[in-house]
């Protein structure tokens, strides 16, 4: 910068500087060739820019951006909560990593490239760095609650699959894209809830082994 008034030129041209500054810059221009030239060049750029064709955003771009930001917020919140879970960080990481793996596998198998990018941005980034952990406890599942969880996760997976199917045929479908984003977020929330309840039980004194039923006395 060769003149202290140089930074004022853009605001002056836009008409956004206050009256006192404008008057001072007017006075300055009469004696500063550098700023006078700068002002002419800026004005030329602005005039030329107005003649350029305005590029059209892809259909639904703002909504997709909004969906990405919303999903990022949800995942960030989820990751923050998971990280606070005492003693279950590894399993939380496991759940998150598994989710990522599932999402990734579905992307590779069926999702259109743009869709895969969306998922990668919204979910992959949040879970990146977490390493999958062996799922040693999967075989212990039983009971009504676990069945409901299974059914619910299946329902969410079905919703993900349906949304992806529509997006393959109609990539511009805002509703399908939003449904996909919601379903992915729901799946994260579901896993997060399960981990949170586990943590809840861990925090109850004397119940470190959860609520496993023992034998009838």
């Amino acid at each position, binding site marked *: 910068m060769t003149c202290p008034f140089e930074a004022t030129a853009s605001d002056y041209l836009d008409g956004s500087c206050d009256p006192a500054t404008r008057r001072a810059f007017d006075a300055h221009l009469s004696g500063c060739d550098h700023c006078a030239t700068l002002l002419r060049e800026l004005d030329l750029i602005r005039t030329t820019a107005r003649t350029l064709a305005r590029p059209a955003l892809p259909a639904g771009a703002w909504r997709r951006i909004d969906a990405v930001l919303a999903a990022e917020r949800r995942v960030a919140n989820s990751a923050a909560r998971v990280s606070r879970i005492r003693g279950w960080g590894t399993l939380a990481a496991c759940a998150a990593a598994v989710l990522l793996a599932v999402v990734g596998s579905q992307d590779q198998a069926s999702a259109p490239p743009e869709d895969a990018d969306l998922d990668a941005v919204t979910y992959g980034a949040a879970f990146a760095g977490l390493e999958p952990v062996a799922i040693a406890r999967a075989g212990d599942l039983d009971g009504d609650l676990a*069945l409901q969880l299974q059914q619910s996760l299946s329902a969410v997976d079905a919703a993900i699959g349906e949304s992806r199917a529509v997006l393959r045929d109609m990539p511009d479908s805002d509703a399908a894209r939003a*449904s996909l984003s919601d379903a992915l977020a729901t799946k994260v929330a579901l896993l997060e809830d399960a981990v949170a309840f586990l943590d809840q039980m861990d925090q109850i004194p004397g119940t470190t082994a959860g*609520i496993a039923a*023992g034998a009838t006395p």
Partner: protein
Amino acid sequence: MITFRTLLAAAVAVAVLGGLPGDASSQFRPRQGGRGGGTGGGAARRAERGLPEFTERLSRTLDLPGEGTIELSAVTGNVTITGGGSAVVLEAVKRVRSRTEQAGRTRLSEVSVEVRALGPRLVIDTDYGRDGRPGGVSVDYTLVVPESAGVIVKTGLGSIRIERVRGPVQAETARGNIEVTGTRRLQRLRSLSGDIRITNAEADDTLSLRTVAGAQIVRGLTARAIEAASVAGAVDIDGCTCERIDVRTVNGNIDYRGDLRRGGRYEFVSHDGDVRLALGGGGFELEAESVSGEVRSAFPLVNEGRAGPRRRQPGARGLRGAVGDAGAVLRLRSFSGAIVVERR
């Protein structure tokens, strides 16, 4: 019976084995004869129900500082909390079914209720003794607490009922219903498989509701904002005064009957469930869209247009336009469910 730790295992296993649609049900099933008993656990429970039940009752009166909070944690058993008294009156009933009275009494004696006063908090825990597992013992809690008290309840298997508590209220259960009536500062309710029912309550900030399979039924609620989510449960809201509502389900239907506040923002989203609104007063700007479900509104729309997807998708439905002064924003979306907006 179920271990809580297996919940995560369930989630993880379903994610791994059932992540791809169509695979889940065929590959991921509860193991019969697993640690928790599998379906054999159900048989064991049925056999257990035939055994005599033994109970042990205890009662304590506890002081609670003004505006204090009661934190109650249990693994199995129901919890009932009522606002009213000047102190905390705790009654706990331990229950167990046993082949012999001696074995039953012995087991009950091993289970204790621990109470700790930590500043403004009164922490009530259940110590199951032995290896920390309930071992067939459940403990039902009944508390009368000062109206101004706050309440935080967490249970595993059991229902929660809270009435006339004016302080902040939070409740969570894995398998059980949550029923809240006449509270003034409702904050957060969670149930994995049970229902949530709210009657004549208030929330001074955002009320968060979440179920997995259970329904959420709201009858009379004043809140700044509501965020409700469920996978398979229905969400039914009637008589709610709220300036911001966000409801999302996967399979559950969504019903909302009431008015929309000027300046309010209301969003109801379901993948496969129907979204049905019966609206009274208040203008709104409507944006409704569905990939394959029916979309209709009983309100004549000004500047009516079709929502985005319809321009490109012959099968998609959408409505967009203003009603009255368009004072509220109403966004409705479904994938395959119907969207219906009617007059109340």
